[in-house]
């Protein structure tokens, strides 16, 4: 057939590959292409599971949500995994929710090869996500300045965010 909509750009794999994945690149890609699990990033530390549920239920029945946690503090650190029962529902999220706002922030969604115990923890040195170690901007929803910046600036500039 000449004209069809399969392989549409919004559901394609991104260039990200999990460095800690146990298996070959080819295996990882195979899993990504069949996956019903999504990675959701750029969340605020204060975004709740309930909010995530409400938004993503619009794309289909959610099987489970796994909040991303700071490795030491065990508090949310701005990402989560979201698993649907079907691939089609996950694709709907990629098509219609990726790049829109949750909790006032533009969220980014990507395919994930599948949740494995341990992957819910941030991989940054100080316990959160790697991106929060190095970033130079001030992000009130993600602990203020990046961790390296905070060390440079000293105690008076640390922090940010508004607990509810």
């Amino acid at each position: 057939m000449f004209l069809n909509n399969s392989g549409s750009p919004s559901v394609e794999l991104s260039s990200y590959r999990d460095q800690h994945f146990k298996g070959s690149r080819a295996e990882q890609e195979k899993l990504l292409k069949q996956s019903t699990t999504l990675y959701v990033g750029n969340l605020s530390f204060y975004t709740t599971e309930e909010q995530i549920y409400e938004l993503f239920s619009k794309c289909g029945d959610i099987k489970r949500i796994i909040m991303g946690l700071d490795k030491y503090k065990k508090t949310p650190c701005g990402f989560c995994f979201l698993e649907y029962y079907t691939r089609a529902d996950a694709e709907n999220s990629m098509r219609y929710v990726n790049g829109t706002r949750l909790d006032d922030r533009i969220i980014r969604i990507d395919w994930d090869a599948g949740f494995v115990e341990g992957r819910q923890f941030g991989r940054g040195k100080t316990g959160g996500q790697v991106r929060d170690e190095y970033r130079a901007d001030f992000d009130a929803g993600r602990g203020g300045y990046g961790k390296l910046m905070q060390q440079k600036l000293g105690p008076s500039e640390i922090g940010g965010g508004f607990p509810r």
Partner: protein
Amino acid sequence: MNALDRLGKKRRKVSENQDIEDRLGKLIIEVGEKNTNLESNLEGLASVLEGDLGTFRAKVLRILTECAIKIPEKCTIYSTLVGLLNSKNYNFGGEFVEHMVRNLKDNLKSCNWNSARYCLRFLADLVNCHVISANSLLALFDNLLDAVKEEGVPMVRKDWYAYAVLSCLPWVGRELYEKKEHELNMLLTTIEVYLNKRSKKHLAVLRVWATDNPHPQEEYLECLWAQINKLRQDNWTENHILRPYLAFDSILCEALQHNIPAIIPPPHHPSYKYPMPWVVFRMFDYTDCPEVSLGPILPGAHAIERYLIEEHLHQIIELYHYERKECSQQLMNFPYKLNIPLEYCVIEVIFAELLSLPSPRYIEIFYSSLLLELCKLKPYSIPQVLAQATEMFFFRLENMNVACFDRLVTWFSYHLSNFKFSFAWDDWEASVKFHPEHPQPKFIREVLLKTMRLSYHQRICDMVPKSYASLLPEKPEVNYKYNIENSNIIEGVQYAQTLTTAIRQKNSDEQIINILKDISNPLLMEASGDVEPRFNPLQISVFVQTLLFLGAKSFTHSFVAINRYYEVLKWLAESEEAQLCVLRSIFELWRTHQQMLVVLIDKLLKNQILDCSSVANWIFSKEMSSEFTKLYIWEILCLTINKMSKHVNRLTKELSEMREKVGHTTGSSDSEDEEPQVKSEEKVTEEMVERMEEKLESAQGDQKNLFLIIFQRFIMILSEHLVRCDTDGISHDNYWYKWTIGRLQQVFLAHHDQVQKYSSTLETLLFTQDLDPHILEVFHQFLSLRG
């Protein structure tokens, strides 16, 4: 040259051919897309293709046919191309016509209604290009219209054939009028006679607004008929459609025409599913758009241009609905954008789909995200029109269909969440003082509840003016009554404390059950003599509330708790009365947190601790009457019905897959010592199929029972209300009645595919002639959908 060389040469030749084929395909698909000289493009392409007809005839035939059907908005471009080819090569023209007719036949047989209609329209347009004779087209139309005279077939079948012929007339009406005016009039008379006879009962149930003020909500065939009639009054002069063939008239009229081989509509088969009727959605007319002098005018409701523009916009949405960015760009690049107030047309078409009954064509969030994309693409025009649309919706809520009301609540709250919830709330301040069940304050209340789910309570309180205080949601909090402070007031606090410790220490199911067995049963005190109560409400309340209180921190915590003590819950919730008690306990605990209630009930249905029928009965119970008109209740009922439907569908699918596999099993099932001859997987035996059939039958029984319960409860409460109003001599038409009858309609409509199966049972058992006509009417409207 050896064999390998020859193979190589052949492969090279094949891949060369493949390249040319691909290039030809690309040329054909893309013709008319760039804003270059269309006529010279068509001329050039026709020459190229004519040259290739020798080698690539089949391929060209196939691509052209596909383009004609799959890119209907370029119908006249491709028909011109075929016209030019026909004038150069008469045989090719004949082959193409045959090919197209065969496609039409196949599409009719396989119920691909849209494709069939585009085929028919293309054939009609070929008359304009002198490829087909007007006579044979008229003969084709006559044959197809025989369907409207058939007896004992669904009305929707006859409707489709009338619609298919009518929708060709904007293209070929003028030509037929010039050459065969008499026959054209006869055709129109046939259609008119049919339209006058047909029932329009379904109009009531498919319209978004119950009133025709300010914009008539017309039944689709009636609307098109009015548009065609206006076109006829204008002598079939139509200025909207691009007609490249006009420039080639001198060449084309020299060509020889073909006759269409005769075809008749494939006879109706009970398995055929015809498109459902619809009501044309209108929310704008030219008075809603900016001053005439400032911009192009929106064509009137009965102008054929309105039909053509809408159809084209819907087609764009169909083609690009997987890519919201591309879709928004294509919509705003609409080829005729300079002639119309494009933003108004686009927004009207999008809401037409979002509010479409019984359900939107695509998932609701697609339309939400498309509107967001349009706001980004055209930040100086779209948001203003959208704001205007929102205001219009709000002030016309009173007559709006209940399902559409729900969808607007969902859309609006989600839309706001992408714009920091900023909105001119003051504009709607007057509604705050209306009766709480009036649609306007209800809309605000439900929107605030939904926006709260996407943010948090304080945020919502802060975003609205102080005057909105009475519409604000309660703060969602867990309400646990078995606190130690309540030990003197509430019975069971002691047990709750014991259970709390036991659960925290991760006691086993057995240990928990033993604790529960010690709880005295309040029903025993009331019971007379030997009647053993079938459940212990105190047991249930204490356990369920304590367990869920311990898991109150998040959904996941509650799910973990439920999974952990699944056996205990199963043991407790054995009977329907026990399950009702479970539901009551959950409701008591989480009354202010609607989202939690929805999610918990969904979970308990999923792991079958609760039966669908219990949830249905709970919703209609006296205790829940104060919640009855709130949206989340219908969210719960809807998900309950859907779960049952999904279950039945899954079993149906599994059964048919199993039946196929049985057919392929080569081994006989007589001898047990035989090696299974079917590779790996499962060997499907007749016995397995029988067991699956039983499972399916049982599930369908449950489904029928669920619908019976729901409809019966509706009938009971509505009848009660009608009788009471009659006795008291007051009008029955209060807000509660409007919402409730609307919900009954909604259940019929939203699940009509499933309910259909049980129509005769419903008619015999519940919707009998002695029922109040108001209630019976809803049932008859539902029946008319597929009649």
